[in-house]
């Protein structure tokens, strides 16, 4: 009975995803087996896996490392910043909890491009931040912040922060304060309470936040493109270029699938190891 109910609950969502995600993806997979033909159209006369072999090109290694690096740092920062603020909203928000949460999201109902331009205005050589730093005497010359790793990671963390805060909040807010009180009795230091009581109990939230940050971050190419410089090219941009500039859809699709498999595989392995460590997930 429980089994049936589980299936019934997930059925609508799964059906939608199969119909509007898996099927279209299958079409692209078929495309990846073809070749770029006349007029840059897809030629499926002799499907093969050549594009996949081509895609394992060392040219893509630096950009793949970039994507990995940015995604990892962004995730860690988002968790590090997101957890305390989610905790603060949950414990001290009181009546205003929902309000505070929506306030977290509010900046993201402006347009992405304008927000990015605003970061350019803040981070540029004669921008708000540099002016401030020089005014208080911390620096004497403008720091080059725009078009570097710094601006990219800052921009990406900014963009993904709500995706960490919200799931973390949802999990932290469920904490039974009785458990916390008991924990404080058991452990002497606040840090021990956090490590042995709070963190494990909020682990589902941490995992959710990590997933919602890391996975999309690997595929993010717009932020590194707009805020970054010559050294910040990502693999997602390479894929984009293959599709649009190269007009080689099969090749782009193959590289895309390889990225997906690698990311997914890595994530699943990480999840399984994590689940084994954490009780009851």
């Amino acid at each position, binding site marked *: 009975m429980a*089994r049936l*109910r*589980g*299936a*019934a*609950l*997930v059925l609508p969502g799964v059906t939608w*995803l*199969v119909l*509007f995600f898996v*099927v*279209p*993806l299958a*079409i*692209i997979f078929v495309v990846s087996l073809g070749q770029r033909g006349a007029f840059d159209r897809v030629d499926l006369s002799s499907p093969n896996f050549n594009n996949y072999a081509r895609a394992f090109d060392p040219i893509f290694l630096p950009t793949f490392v970039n994507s990995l690096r940015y995604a990892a740092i962004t995730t860690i920062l988002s968790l590090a910043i997101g957890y*305390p*603020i989610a*905790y603060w909203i949950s414990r*001290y*928000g009181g009546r205003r*909890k*929902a*309000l505070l*949460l929506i*306030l977290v*999201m*509010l*900046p*993201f*109902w*402006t*347009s992405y491009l304008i*927000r990015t*331009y*605003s970061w350019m*205005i*803040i981070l540029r050589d004669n921008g708000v931040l540099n002016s401030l730093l020089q005014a208080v005497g911390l620096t004497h010359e403008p720091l080059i912040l725009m078009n570097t790793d710094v601006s990219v990671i800052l921009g990406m963390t*900014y963009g993904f922060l709500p*995706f960490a805060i*919200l*799931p973390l*909040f*949802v*999990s932290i807010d*469920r904490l039974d*304060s009785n458990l916390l009180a008991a924990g404080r009795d058991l452990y002497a230091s606040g840090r021990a309470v956090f490590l042995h009581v709070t963190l494990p109990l909020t682990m*589902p939230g941490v995992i*959710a936040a990590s*997933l*919602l940050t890391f996975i999309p971050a690997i*595929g993010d*190419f*717009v932020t590194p493109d707009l805020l970054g410089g010559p050294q910040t090219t990502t693999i997602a941009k390479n894929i*984009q270029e293959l599709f649009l500039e190269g007009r080689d859809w099969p090749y782009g699709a193959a590289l*895309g699938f390889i*990225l*997906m498999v690698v990311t*997914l595989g890595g994530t*699943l392995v990480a999840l399984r190891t994590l689940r084994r460590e954490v009780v009851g*997930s």
Partner: protein
Amino acid sequence: MSRERNPLLTLFAIGVYGFLFAPVVVLIVFSFNNARRGLAWRGFTFDWYPTLFSNDELLDALWITLQVAAVAVLLSTVLGSLLGLGLARIRFRGRAATETLLLVPMVTPEIVMGLSLLLFFLQLFDGRGSVAQLWVAHTTFCISYVAVVVRARAANMNPALEEAARDLGASAWGAFRYVTLPLIAPAVLAGGLLAFSLSFDDYVVTTFNAGVGSSTLPLYIYSKVKFGVTPEINAISTIVVALTALAILAAWRLGAFGREGRTIVAEEDAPPT
């Protein structure tokens, strides 16, 4: 039961909100920039606000964006919440596969997703881009996010609660409505908020699935980059934020968020007073 205030944490929180709103402040300031394009400040003017109201294309684009977001949020929260709930609580065959299925849309590069839907609609329905296509596309990439958030919340929930309700005579729907739903409500809400942001700002997938008369705000704005984005865009963003803030404030004053934040905190968790 008193909760000691942690001033350090509060300071940190203020810092985080400052970080979140820093570009918004800059954006609002620059909506008064007396320069038609570019990122340099050239003095103060109110001009962009009135011109914005006569810019039909911009307003149409905003309307379409909001419409699509509304549909996407509605559909994705329903489908995603059910998905997350089912995955969290009940073991069934194919559960692992469903879990993986959930993650795949998030892993998919946007251009792959956008083009796959373009081809899908083109080949099967001769679709050339339309608002309906956008509804489908946006819903599709939002579902996973909602499901992951709801799953995390539901994972901690005691399934015995619902069974107890059933034992006490509630129908399946009643148990769901009065026990389960309130408990996952915050997660559903959070998922909905995320879905809205994703949909509102989406560019790549939308590019390939919009058609005539279905240009969204991001499409309009990115297209302006070639000749320079005007402060009109800042103006409209400012207005959207201002109106949203006002709406939320009004809702809060009217008690939509409940007393003592009780709709957020689960009943079983309420501290014993």
